[in-house]
């Protein structure tokens, strides 16, 4: 079935989708209903009060207050994505100094810092096999920067859960170190908030960047959240000189359509689903345990504390060497079984996610991988 020249996308309805980029952004039916209703351009502006974040019909202002509370922060603004939230903070803070980031950060953190004119320093991960970030290395990083530049960095960034290994870093420990050094702390929660409970105050975060389309069951476009702690609003949410209701860092109004409404419609479901995070972790651990019965090894911290799973899979790589479909065999074998989300052609190392799957679906995924691997 086609929509004009576009192919119908039925990956969520017809398959089990394991793509880590997509599982946490799988929409709720309420989100899709909101998207259907608010799909037209500038639909959010029917009752404009001069800026997106003060709009009360629909109640964006009320929603942002609820989101701040949910994240344990004091103020929030909608952004066009997590990267825009990170960039907003970096741009507001930067005077051309430096930033200390974790070595597992997403590329968008790095290009945001570069665009904001910050010199980037990294806390390296600990290498094979777990690639962990050690929170205590932030102290060492701060001292190194001070030695090299004469000043501590203007900002520290931690990727709470990285997109490569799905490692969960002890953000509270990093927050404590940042607070001890009086370095503002930006927590990137693209893979955590919306999936698991986050309390910015307990963590000691000054800023939290979130991804609606990655982890808050939102769709209909890109959507993010920037939440901040009391005391930063004059700097980070500063309005334009001639436009007193328009925050500079979101260029006045960020997401002006269906994606923000999708985020709002999914929010009640998100508040409930974060309470079931332990169950999501159990599913990930179960799958790893099953897959490691054959020549497959999970890479990253063990045991898993997140649904994003990176695997080293010599078993499939060996089969690919003699298979007529070569490296593509795994993709097609899985697709024939109703499972997608893997990059076609990959057999040696790949990432999958069990987020939001039922136990029945997770068991079926495990059985399928084992069957293909000859287990």
């Amino acid at each position, binding site marked *: 079935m086609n929509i004009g020249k576009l192919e119908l996308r039925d990956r969520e309805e017809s*398959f089990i989708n394991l793509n880590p980029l997509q599982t946490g952004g799988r929409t709720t*039916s309420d989100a899709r209903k909101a998207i259907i209703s608010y799909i037209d351009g500038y639909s959010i502006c029917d009752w404009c009060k001069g800026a997106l974040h003060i709009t009360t019909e629909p109640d964006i202002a009320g929603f942002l207050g609820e989101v701040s509370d949910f994240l344990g922060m004091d103020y929030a603004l909608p952004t066009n994505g997590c990267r825009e939230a990170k960039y907003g903070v970096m741009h507001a803070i930067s005077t051309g100094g430096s930033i200390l980031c974790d070595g597992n950060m997403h590329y968008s953190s790095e290009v945001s810092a570069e665009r904001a004119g910050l010199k980037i320093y990294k806390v390296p991960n600990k290498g094979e096999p777990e690639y962990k970030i050690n929170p205590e290395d932030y102290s060492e990083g701060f001292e190194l920067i001070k030695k090299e530049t004469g000043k501590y960095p203007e900002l520290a960034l931690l990727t709470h859960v990285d997109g490569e290994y799905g490692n969960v870093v002890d953000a509270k420990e990093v927050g404590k170190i940042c607070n001890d050094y009086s370095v503002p702390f930006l927590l990137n929660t693209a893979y955590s908030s919306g999936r698991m409970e986050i309390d910015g105050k307990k963590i000691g975060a000054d800023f939290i960047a979130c991804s609606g389309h990655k982890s808050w069951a939102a769709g209909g476009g890109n959507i993010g959240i920037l939440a901040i702690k009391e005391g930063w609003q004059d700097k980070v949410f500063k309005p334009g000189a001639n436009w007193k209701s328009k925050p500079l860092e979101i260029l006045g109004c960020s997401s002006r359509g269906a994606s923000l409404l999708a985020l709002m419609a999914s929010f009640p479901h998100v508040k409930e689903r974060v309470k079931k995070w332990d169950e999501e972790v159990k599913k990930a651990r179960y799958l790893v345990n099953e897959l490691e019965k054959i020549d497959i090894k999970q890479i990253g911290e063990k045991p898993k504390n997140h649904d994003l799973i990176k695997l080293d899979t010599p078993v499939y790589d060996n089969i690919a060497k003699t298979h007529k479909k070569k490296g593509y065999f795994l993709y097609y074998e899985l697709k024939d079984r109703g499972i997608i989300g893997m990059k076609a052609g990959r057999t040696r190392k790949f990432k999958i996610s069990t987020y939001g799957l039922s136990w029945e679906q997770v068991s079926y995924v495990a059985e399928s991988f084992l069957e293909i691997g000859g287990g």
Partner: protein
Amino acid sequence: MNFMENVVEITFDMAFLIEDMREIWRRTAPFHKLNEEEKKQILTIIDSIKKNCDLISDRVSK
């Protein structure tokens, strides 16, 4: 509510019912083996859509 508004609301109601059905396909992918409750939900959705179709049919036929 005037004639057209009512028809429009019914149309949205059907679109939303379709989304509820779509949710069941998502939950049960890839084989869509439905349990008794899911079967009941699907049949209720279909019944509601049929009733809505009849309502619109009646309105536009007058």
